């Protein structure tokens, strides 16, 4: 049983997945931020591998990626950060990446290095099911979960194939559009989660646009097994770039608030 599988099995309510861009604003600070997320109660850590052309990301995560790249972050550097974080936590660590950094260094290299560093699952944003065969093989060979995306636009036939192929959890994109905080969640979230649940038992983690306790409550009420919060956290990093203690405090307060909403189901 993978760490991710165990985490969902043992969960008493929806899990909280905290996202941060690896290397933002620099490698050392990034490791500290990841530690803060975990200490503050994130159940799963999701780290984004920075990429020069992140077409699925909104402005907040785009800027974080630029900061991380300017600080010299590379895939090898990300794995070094994961090693450091792995020394202090047993919680699952998931990498979220675009395909080109994986392809360029080679899938075998990327997946085996990730596994060796202590990564538990990999999600490649721009690698849909039809292109993901090799990645899924590499994941399997290295004992990693290959996490797949589903979206509101995914039709029933493809959704069934994606649910069938997903391992670890299914990353359900709550709405069309790029990452980033939104005012409201889509109204038909319950129906969307229901469509996935009707096709298999893989845990469903809902992401994109979730930044407030009310969103977390809505996801939990709609049947989500986990919520993923990205831009909300990355935005705090950006706001407190010059003041690490204030950042730590802000992240802790934010996660307490969001976790409180998860438990309040």
């Amino acid at each position, binding site marked *: 049983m993978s760490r991710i599988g165990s985490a969902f099995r043992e969960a008493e309510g929806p899990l909280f997945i905290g996202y941060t861009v690896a290397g933002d604003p620099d490698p050392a600070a990034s490791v500290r931020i990841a530690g803060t997320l975990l200490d503050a109660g994130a159940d799963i850590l999701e780290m984004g591998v920075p*990429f020069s*052309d992140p*077409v699925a990301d909104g402005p907040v995560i785009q800027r974080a990626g630029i900061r991380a790249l300017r600080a010299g972050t590379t895939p*090898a550097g990300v794995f070094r950060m994961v090693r450091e974080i792995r020394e202090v936590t047993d919680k699952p660590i998931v990498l979220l990446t675009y395909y080109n950094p994986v392809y360029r260094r080679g899938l075998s290299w990327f997946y085996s290095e990730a596994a060796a560093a202590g990564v538990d699952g990999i999600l490649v944003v721009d690698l849909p099911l039809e*292109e993901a065969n090799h990645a899924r093989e590499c994941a399997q060979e290295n004992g990693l979960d290959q996490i797949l995306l589903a979206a509101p636009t995914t039709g029933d036939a*493809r959704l069934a194939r994606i649910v069938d192929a997903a391992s670890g959890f299914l990353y359900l*994109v709550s709405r069309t*559009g790029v990452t980033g905080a939104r005012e409201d969640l889509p109204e038909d979230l319950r129906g969307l989660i229901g469509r996935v649940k009707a096709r298999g038992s893989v845990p469903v983690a809902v992401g994109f646009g979730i930044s407030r306790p009310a969103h977390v409550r809505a996801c939990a009420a709609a049947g989500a097994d986990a919520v993923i919060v990205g831009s909300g956290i990355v935005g705090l990093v950006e706001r407190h770039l010059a003041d690490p203690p204030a950042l730590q405090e802000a992240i802790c307060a934010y996660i307490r608030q969001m976790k409180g909403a998860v438990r309040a189901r």
Partner: protein
Amino acid sequence: MTGSRGSPTGSKARYGRFGGRYVPETLMEALIRLDEAFTRAMADPAFQQDLSDHLTHYAGRPTPLTFCPNLSRSLGCRIYLKREDLLHGGAHKLNNTLGQALLARSMGKHRIIAETGAGQHGVATAIAGARLGIPVEVYMGETDIHRQALNVSRMRLLGAKVIPVASGTRTLKDAVNEALRDWVERVEDTYYLLGSVVGPHPYPLMVRTFQSVIGEEARRQVLEREGRLPDAILACVGGGSNAIGIFHRFLEDDVRLIGVEAGGEGLATGMHGASLCAGSPGVLHGALSYLLQDEDGQVSETHSIAAGLDYPGVGPELAHLRESGRMEAVSVTDRAAEEAFSLLARTEGIVPALESAHAIAHLVEIAGDLDRDSIVVVNLSGRGDKDVETTVSVPQGTGGSR
């Protein structure tokens, strides 16, 4: 595991090992629907007739194949230009935008978005949108907005909204990024009208299909004029739509096909846009192709005096043609392109786009190796009015009559 119907990993999505569909899940169904709509349209005589009527009576096809007596004499071979600069809008781009805008209309889309570099694709999309009554919004990098101001004015005059892109290098690559982000947001009601043979399947196939009219005509015209096929065809390559447009009909023929990339300040400086000459396989904007990137897969900054060639990627079919040896890929510098720009203006009275001037520049470089009776066709993909400001630094003609 692949879908049983309209499998996206089917052979038509691939050119050798290149191509494919590397996009976020949110766009996948839209690409599958687009592929189906395109396939339906291609088999529909009414659609074909509508497109053909637009191309003939509105866009001005066929475009001439112009013999260049003066340039032929000075370079020592028989030079023809395929005059896409004379197509309505001033570049080959309208072949594609009319085709895709008709497709958008048949799909019931009420909003068209596009990216543009030099502005020619933006203008051609604005024209097609105005003609068919569909609102158009065009993403354009801030750098390009400044260096192609004429086309910005034209787009606005044609009723299109020009959205400046301030991210990244503020050029074509970032305009594509922003257009993709827009499409992910409004995929249900929006048609993304991509301007080159790049992007996820079916775009490379679709754009090539609509641009192949260039080569169909050129082949017929050169046979009528010379009674034989040309020895070589040259075209500039940014994304590669004008190149594949003229090359495709000649793929089975014994004709040299030469794609000319943006050499910028020279390949050794790293300041260029020559993906085929100096890049490596990688995935950008939804396709596996050649890409200018660093060893960790971060996309490189590019440079070209020609905004339409200032792009780190290239169409997957061109990557395949290059790798299979069917097409030669070369590059010429900004400087050489500027010289060719004024050379063609002075010798033949034709001001080429700086993009197209790259193909002329390479012809100048290889002319010494060609026989006097060699027939060469250059795809003159666009006209150069938009570039007159950029090139004022180029030495002007020494003729006394100015």
